[in-house]
């Protein structure tokens, strides 16, 4: 494991905000188990739990906490200077941090989604949700890592994207779904395990291309912004 990964992971798990990751995935599993245990038909509880909670809330919120934590928190407390005062090319800083963010998010979200998918339909749906969520974790992480370098309030920006753009506009104006990672994930999961529980207007090719564009584009943007990272002076 690279030194940047090691420091990032130690920093992430050493902060209390890491505990924020736990309740949502647990809630997802608990709701799926309860629904299944109470004999509620999957067609009734599947969409709100798998999509409404799992893909629309748990995945982006966990990605937001982790994605802004791997770099934004270090920028906030100034410890980012430690890694920046080394001759490492900036991509060698951004990529390990992105890998940690995407990896932690994927593990945290994919496991409960797999369990929920399994309980709702089948192992195949569980696996499809886990794989699609992992891909979505990469796209969200790239977005939120870049946001950490674009604004001093990356969490606020992330919440606006998740709640306003994806949560509100995505449901009202279907055209906005083309710029919604949540709908890319739904499209990919539905392609891997076709089911009536997952519905979106975004086609699979659009989802694949846009996921790649978002992941690569925001990663390149983050690297470029880190190259020009400024520390505020005493007068500013």
């Amino acid at each position, binding site marked *: 494991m690279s*030194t*940047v990964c*090691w*420091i990032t992971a*130690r*920093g992430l798990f*050493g902060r209390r905000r890491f505990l924020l990751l736990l309740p949502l995935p647990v809630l997802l599993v608990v709701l799926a188990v309860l629904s299944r245990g109470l004999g509620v038909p999957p067609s009734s509880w599947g969409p709100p739990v798998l999509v409404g909670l799992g893909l629309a809330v748990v995945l982006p919120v966990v990605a937001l906490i982790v994605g802004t934590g791997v770099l934004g928190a270090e920028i906030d*407390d*100034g*410890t*980012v*200077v*430690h*890694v*920046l*005062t*080394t*001759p*490492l*090319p*900036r991509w060698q800083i951004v990529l390990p941090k992105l890998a940690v963010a995407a990896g932690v998010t994927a593990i945290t979200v994919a496991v409960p989604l797999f369990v929920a998918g399994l309980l709702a339909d089948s192992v195949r749906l569980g696996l499809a949700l886990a794989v699609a969520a992992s891909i979505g974790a990469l796209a969200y992480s790239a977005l939120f890592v870049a946001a950490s370098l674009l604004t001093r309030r990356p969490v606020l920006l992330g919440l606006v994207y998740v709640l306003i753009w994806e949560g509100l506009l995505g449901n009202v104006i279907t055209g906005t779904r083309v710029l919604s990672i949540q709908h890319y994930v739904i499209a990919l999961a539905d392609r891997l395990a076709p089911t009536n529980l997952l519905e979106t207007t975004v086609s699979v090719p659009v989802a694949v291309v846009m996921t790649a564009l978002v992941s690569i584009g925001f990663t390149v943007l983050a690297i470029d912004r880190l*190259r*020009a*990272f*400024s*520390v505020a*002076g*005493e*007068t*500013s």
Partner: protein
Amino acid sequence: MTTTSNPAPPTTTSTLTLTGVSRWYGNVVAVNDVSMSLGPGVTGLLGPNGAGKTTLLHMMAGFLAPSRGQVTLDGRPTWRNPAVYRQLGLVSEREAVHSFLTAYEYVLATAKLHKLPDPQAAARRAIAMVEMESAQDRRIGTYSKGMRQRARVAAALVHEPQVLLLDEPFNGMDPRQRLHMMELLHSLGDAGRTILFSSHILEEVEQVSGTVQVMVAGRLAASGDFRTIRRLMTNRPHVFAVRSTDDRALAVALMAEPSVSGVELGRDGLTVRAGDYGAFTRVLPKVALARGIRVRQLLPEDESLESVFSYLVEA
């Protein structure tokens, strides 16, 4: 107290050059048209709070783009150029350090990030340099402010940079730690490294370095040895304390000299104000000898850094 591990002399020396550097934030000019060249040795960057020292250091360290002008290290710009950190170390003022790591882990991680051939040995050497061996396995979060500062200095020194920039390095240190840090900076400077440290504490700068860069309101007000700077301030009379075998007679004789602008006779001797430093120091022995007076003490009273600094700030 002795330093346990002396820094090795660098194989080459580096020069940090600022050419017409300015930095502004909106309408506020933080640094205004500063040019300087820093070579081997210890230099103090002095100025009152808000003078632009930190902004200048950040530009030197490549953490801030100059609004105008250029900062180069051996001819290469420091901005957007991570390769300069092979030669440059920075200890910033902000006490930013991973509190969940031990000092050894922190310095070792830095050595690995620099891709040093033997990071363990480099980390041990840097920790020894700041005398942190006994506490190196404790988490940094449990350290005092001064200890954290030393851990940060060790991390900045682990790759043996030719240039070390320190922003208020003595903040939070107890007298013993402060003395040790001063010795360390001296030894690094003597070994041929370029050391620049900022401070608003005059005594710190005076004890560590004779060479200063004085910032006042964003401008470089003076540069060089502060005693030489003082002597160049010809518009201010130089003040000397003089004691002799006959102070009254000496006072009368000195008043006749054109280089002397005033003499005050006190219980402990004379306070002489001289407009021309060189002329007065040449004429005093002649005057005393001619009158059979023996000069027991001649002490420049306003050649301290404090005097120089206050004159510059008032100007």
